[in-house]
């Protein structure tokens, strides 16, 4: 238990000390209390804004901590959504069908990531090639789903739906409890909090230190006896599952999915969140994902053409002037400034070297 707490508050993430944890707990409590004070519409909106956080956390783990940049997270997001739709739609009426479909969706994404990742990491592809291959994967997926209109493209009882997307996807149901409205909101919130805390433990564990070491100097890490191909493949799969989780929550939220969830516009958003937040801080990324999703949906519902220009501009500004991320720079400057000296995030740490290899 003590060990777990140590891992939670390790050096690989911002935010330490009683004040921080109290603040985080208070924020969570407020979010859990939200259905009491807010109306139905707000709950639906918040469910949507929160559902992207696992996707963003996955990319933060992959890019920020592992140094592996992927533009393909939305491909896994979409793949999970479509898989859930296909399995769930074919098992309608069977008890526990939606649970099976959820598990199937995440499994499918994990297998896809495993195969793709095997070629990429065990092929020792240079690091700059990975974003390009993952971008191509995303575009190929989108193009494929766009042309699946008509009766020829049906899996069992489910129409893939082409450009217009797949509709009538069943909501999650356990026994008599249908996850909708408040119940769904609590599900999303719980998953977000749990995935944040688990990832915090992961990045501060021995594995997390090896991961950061492989980002800082892959040759040295290998010479110390760690198989960085395996390390990278594992985080690639983990981040794909997190992206798949978001995709799953998306179809559970809206009961539909279109190929544009895997388009170039969708693909850029996670990268904007992570770059703006600060890629090696999970919390900053989660905040940025929430905030920028809000901005994006406001701009979209206002019919503004400038949403993409703003997102692209944000990316340029963040990369050029705040390489550590805008939120992290703000946080370092003010909120956590005094506590930060002992815990830099580029912590390749002598600890790693002094421990024995597994």
């Amino acid at each position, binding site marked *: 238990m003590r060990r777990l707490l140590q891992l939670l508050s390790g050096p690989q993430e911002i935010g330490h000390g009683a004040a921080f944890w109290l603040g985080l707990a208070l924020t969570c409590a407020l979010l859990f209390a939200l259905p009491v004070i807010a109306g139905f519409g707000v709950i639906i909106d918040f469910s949507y804004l929160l559902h992207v956080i696992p996707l963003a956390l996955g990319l933060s783990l992959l*890019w920020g901590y592992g*140094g592996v*940049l992927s*533009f393909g997270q939305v491909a896994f997001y979409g793949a999970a959504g479509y898989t859930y739709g296909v399995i769930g739609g074919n098992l309608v009426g069977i008890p526990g069908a939606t649970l099976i479909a959820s598990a199937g969706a995440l499994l499918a994404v994990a297998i896809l990531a495993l195969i*793709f990742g095997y*070629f*990429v990491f*065990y*092929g*020792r*592809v*240079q*690091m*700059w*090639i990975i*974003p*390009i*291959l993952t*971008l*191509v*994967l995303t*575009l*190929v997926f989108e*193009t*494929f789903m766009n*042309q699946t209109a008509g009766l020829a493209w049906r899996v069992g009882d489910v129409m893939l739906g082409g450009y217009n997307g797949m509709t009538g996807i069943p909501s999650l149901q356990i026994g008599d409890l249908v996850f909708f409205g408040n119940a769904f909101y609590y599900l999303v919130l719980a998953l977000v909090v749990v995935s944040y805390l688990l990832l915090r433990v992961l990045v501060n564990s021995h594995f997390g230190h090896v991961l950061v070491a492989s980002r800082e100097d892959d040759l040295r890490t290998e010479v110390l006896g760690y198989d960085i191909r395996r390390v990278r493949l594992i985080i690639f799969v983990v981040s794909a599952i997190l992206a798949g989780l978001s995709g799953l929550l998306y179809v559970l939220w809206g009961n539909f999915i279109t190929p544009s969830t895997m388009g*170039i516009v969708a693909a*850029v958003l996670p*990268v*904007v969140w992570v*770059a703006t937040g600060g890629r090696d801080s999970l919390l900053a990324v989660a905040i940025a994902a929430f905030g920028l999703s809000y901005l994006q949906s406001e701009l979209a519902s206002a019919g503004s*053409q*400038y949403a*993409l*220009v703003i*997102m*692209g*501009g*944000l*990316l*340029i500004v963040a*990369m*050029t002037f705040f*390489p550590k991320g805008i939120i992290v720079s703000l946080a370092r400057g003010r909120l956590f400034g005094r506590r930060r000296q002992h815990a830099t995030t580029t912590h390749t740490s002598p600890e790693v070297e002094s421990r024995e290899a597994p």
Partner: protein
Amino acid sequence: MTEVFNFAYLFLNNAAFLLLSALGLVIILGMMDIINLAHGELIMMGAYVTTIAYQAGVPFVIAPVFAFAIVGIFGVIIERLFIRRFYGRELGALVLTWGISLVMSQGIRIIFGSSMKPIPTPLGSFSIGDYSYSYYRLLLIALGVLLLVCIWWIYNRTSFGLHARATMQNPDMARTLGINTRRIYMYTFGLGAALAGLTGALFAPTTHISPLMGQQFVVPAFIVVVIGGTAGVFSGVAGSSTLLSLIQTPVGVAYGAYLGLIVLLVAALVIIRVLPNGVSSFLQRWGDALSERRQGAVGK
């Protein structure tokens, strides 16, 4: 016979498309280690410049010159403003140029709307057997080869090329010897952008001109570059566009363009698993082995 000619035409056509798409990209990557994800949007910009010039009454033969110059200058401006801060940070540059590409494509959409009036394909066509061929496409094939030779000449036979290669191999040493490496980087990026603009101009009459047209170029271009590798820039891009066209053309003919694209991706994954450093390092090793054997024979 007509079938053979037809296949050769399609094959060369595909190869020229891949080559022209990748040319500007590979110069910037090979010489500067900068991955320019805005490459497709620079091509798009070239097509827009050409179309606007053409609508304004400039003859089509001259319009590409405008595209070359304007996109080249735009490239230099981008390099001075942003790219120069990212030397040595490949992933940073990649994300930055993606941001630039978003702003460009959406900016163009806001200014010019979602499509442009097309330019008619010049030069007409001829037919052999049942198939009809366009002279313009043949011209593009020839231009692709010509451009590759020109670029090779610039980088291997001029003093600018010598300085550029020195900068690529060892920037610190090049600076010590009095080469202005900042200027070399600026010109190289400008040249890469200008070539992208020229590619856009050349393909403007053959394609639908829209703010998203860059995508159709950028994916094949990157696959060519990834497969080509950076061991030898020119052998890589020529070798990999030939190889990929050889894979893509039969599939495209038999099953349609979309599956051709899928095969391109799968081929890229498999080739990279077999040849992690790309076609160019394979060609280089092959060439080395050949010359070694020849020397061995002379030695005897």
